[in-house]
């Protein structure tokens, strides 16, 4: 609790970026988080588009009517109902029996699917580092909201799921899990890994996919994750070099995963065509996400993480 209280009251001065705060365990990468950012995250809650059904009660509303104190609705008494829930005031006025319904609060599982393919290790700053920080931030928010948070790294054809965490006191475990994720050595089949991750889901919850989606089957990944019934949030992370390539001249482009080679003449027309293609590609993902009632957020890896958390995700109604 000493660690938790120190985060909450903000007594200790914020550590400079890149230096390890005194309370951070050795498993946590100090370059990813600093103390001040962690405190700011506490104020955020995940904004759910709609109530989701969960196994445990938590700080979130459930579609089920239950035993909480928040009134939801009335319904006519039926045989077998708990007589303690009858509203006698209504019976006195209407002479009919009604039962009060209350919103049952449940906890939900937030699953952070982190694409750890080799392409995610590229970019300045690295897309994987950015994705880790974003995942940590979202995970921490989930922990602070008494949700269950689990991290799953998509590498090769599998998803390496970590144990579910609950409560804000497990934040360092979360950070340690994220720090342990390394980019894959070989090619990654994002669809197979996503399917594996979907099979590991327990019920409906929130699934956050952090990926560059540089996979031919990326659209099917979104489609299948959305089909799990969980609320899907796609954080599409691209590096500045991918968003605005600074290439010039006759070049041979080498794919970092497949080592496939493409010869191009990078002139203005080519770059313009690439940008148009990129916009169409990202637009297709956004459309697909909208059709599947998923959230899609395109991000640049050089984006300020605080700005992302406090402005961009709130603007997109991912965070409340």
């Amino acid at each position, binding site marked *: 609790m000493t660690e938790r209280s120190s985060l909450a009251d903000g007594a200790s001065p914020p550590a400079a970026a890149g230096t390890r705060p005194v309370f951070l365990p050795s498993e946590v990468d100090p370059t990813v988080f600093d103390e001040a950012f962690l405190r700011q995250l506490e104020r955020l809650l995940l904004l759910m588009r709609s109530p989701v059904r969960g196994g445990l009660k938590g700080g979130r509303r459930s579609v089920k009517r239950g035993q909480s104190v928040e009134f939801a609705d009335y319904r006519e008494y039926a045989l077998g109902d708990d007589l303690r829930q009858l509203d006698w005031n209504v019976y006195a006025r209407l002479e009919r029996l009604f039962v009060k319904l209350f919103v049952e609060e449940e906890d939900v599982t937030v699953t952070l699917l982190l694409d750890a393919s080799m392409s995610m290790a590229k970019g300045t700053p690295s897309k994987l580092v950015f994705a880790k920080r974003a995942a940590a931030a979202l995970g921490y928010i989930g922990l602070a909201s008494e949700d269950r948070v689990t991290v799953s790294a998509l590498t090769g054809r599998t998803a390496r799921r970590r144990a579910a965490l609950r409560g804000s006191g497990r934040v360092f475990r979360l950070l340690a899990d994220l720090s342990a994720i390394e980019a894959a050595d070989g090619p990654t089949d994002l669809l197979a890994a996503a399917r594996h991750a979907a099979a590991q889901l327990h019920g409906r919850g929130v699934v956050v996919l952090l990926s560059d989606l540089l996979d031919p089957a990326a659209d099917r990944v979104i489609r299948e994750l959305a089909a799990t019934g969980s609320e899907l949030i796609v954080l599409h992370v691209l590096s500045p070099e991918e968003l605005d390539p600074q290439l010039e001249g006759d070049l041979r482009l080498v794919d970092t995963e*497949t080592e496939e080679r*493409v010869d191009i*003449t990078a002139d*203005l027309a*080519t770059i313009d065509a690439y940008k148009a293609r990129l916009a169409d*590609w990202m637009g297709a993902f956004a459309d697909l996400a909208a059709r599947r009632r998923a959230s899609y957020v395109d991000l640049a890896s050089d984006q300020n993480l605080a700005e992302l958390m406090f402005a961009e995700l709130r603007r997109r109604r991912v965070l409340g």
Partner: protein
Amino acid sequence: MPFATPLALLGLLFLPAVIAMYLLKLRRDEAVVPSTLLWTRLVADVEANAPWQRLRHSLLLLLQLLLVIALALLAARPFLERPAGLARDIVLVMDTSASMSATDVVPDRLTAAKQVAIEALKDLPTGGKVSVIAADRSARIVVNESNDLSRVRQAIEGIPVTQSRGDLGDALELASKLAARSGDAQVLVATDAALATTPTGKVAAPVKVLTVGRERKNQAIVALAVRTSPSAVTRSVFTSVANLDLDSAARRLELWGDDRLLEVRDVHLDPQARSDVLIDDLPKGVGTVEVRLVGADPAVVAAPDQLPVDDRAWAVVPPDRTRLVLVVGSGDPYLETALSYLPDVELYGVTPAEYGPKTERTDGRPWDLVVFESFLPATLPKTPVLAISPPTSSPLGDVSGTLKDPGIGTLDPDEPVLRFVDLSTTHIAEAAKLTTPSWARTIIPGPRGAPLLYSGTHDGVNQAVLAFEPRRSDLPLQVAFPILLANLTGELLGSSTAPTEAVAPGTPVQLVIPSGAKGLTVTRPDGTTTELVPTTTAGTSAAVTFAGTDQLGIYTVTPMVDPAASSRPSGSGAPSGSAPSATPAGTARPLASTGASEAPVVVDPLAPVRFAVDLFDVGESTIAPGSAAAIVALGTQPGASPAPGASGVGGAGSPATERPTTRDELWVPIVLAVLAFLCVEWALYHRDGLVKLRRTIGERLGRSGAGPATG
């Protein structure tokens, strides 16, 4: 299409080399990217992987191939052939006289004539030769039989306009001689045909005239003189202005003295008429005067007419100096009368018996001239001497007897002493028989080589000997006598160190080197100097000829003091002071005095003297373009009269059998094409930068345009 150097087309072999280099240029820089997923979907870049497809789309390669083709064509020098308009040998006469500087055509007639001539030479047959003659006061060959047209053009461009009178006849005669060397020659004359004297000699080739000039608006100063008034007190400036236009003109005449404006007169000039302006009372101390003809409106700074060169004239004011002349003799009234009429002369006389040290002046000033009449002292004075009928032999010459009724030999028309002197009716009763010494030149030759008058410089002193007494002839009764005496004393007195009258531009002038000087330095109006030092130091070389009078203005002649020479004549060299006398002239009695009445000025013979060079040529100032027909008529049509020495028998140059052709090389359009290819290639190569620049400018303009609206 024919080519001058077809071998240069081998340069087309570079075409495959360029293509090969393009094909071989497959080495690309590798760039590792996270994924090639998006790139592979770009169709155009995928196609770029195929070399031939890339060739098909490469405008740069196409442009480079076109460049190689154009450069090879350029080196091969393609040309078009057409009949030549000129003969194989061209003699181009460029009129460079003063009238060619007229500005009625822009910028002036000579420049226009050069352009016309260069344009005309484009009709020169292939292999044709060109000679160029510049014609002003005399003709000179600028280019001789050159087939290098660029050199000819350069030479034509370098011909300067002169300020002298043109003599086209001389140039045409020279052109005729040059043309006579060839069987197919033609004379081109680039002129304004405003000729002072129409040439008359025939030219042994056809003549074509390239006329320049349109108008005749010109007013000119045609005379300027500074004269002492009869009272010998003041000086007057006489100016004559001619209007050579067909319209009347109002002009303003400015008189400048030593670069100070002295007086301004408004002059109304009738068409084709002269107007004389007399300005009296020239201030004392003025050395040179300049007259400028300017526009009537002083606010207008533009030249008032189309020939500025004749709107200015200069004159040298005669110096105030009195000459001291001593006559030693019995007293010849004719001689004394003639001498007394000389300007600025104080005349003194003594008898031979009185002559001696006592006749030396006590004021330290030597006699400027001593005239011995039938008498010679044992020792000649160190001053200029005129010995008349010397009785005995002396350093001035040997007397070997007497000549009775000597006839006068053939006179040299260029002899300056005999200028305006007519001796055709002169009879001489008796004269001393003399022999011309080596230091002297014969002025009036007598019978059998015996001179009647000779002059020269002996021991650094001007000396002359007249073999007869004037009264022993009828010469004193003739007008020639005072003129001869004036010319002779003028030479002896050294007054003609520089010419006193205006010199025509380009005319050589005779400059006298005074005693004690080793040479002369002539400063031209533009400040450049010329040193004139005679090559020999013999007595006859005391005069030098200066020919560089091509500029209008004042020339200053400064004697170069010879440190090795004896001291100045006015110094202590004269035996003065041995017999002090109460009168400045010792025992000499004054006979007459003319000129200024002021105290005599001690004249330094080594002081700089000046002379003026002026155009004063109505012929050159008349810039109205003349008729070319008169010049064309001087030419000889081919076949009419064979040119002497022409070698046009059979050879390739026979104009009657074969019409020569000329080539128009097509390098200009090829060079333009090369430049266009280069520009397009540059734009293509940098098209990305240009597009970015355009976008940046567009964005900034959009921002600046949107700023006020949103604010």
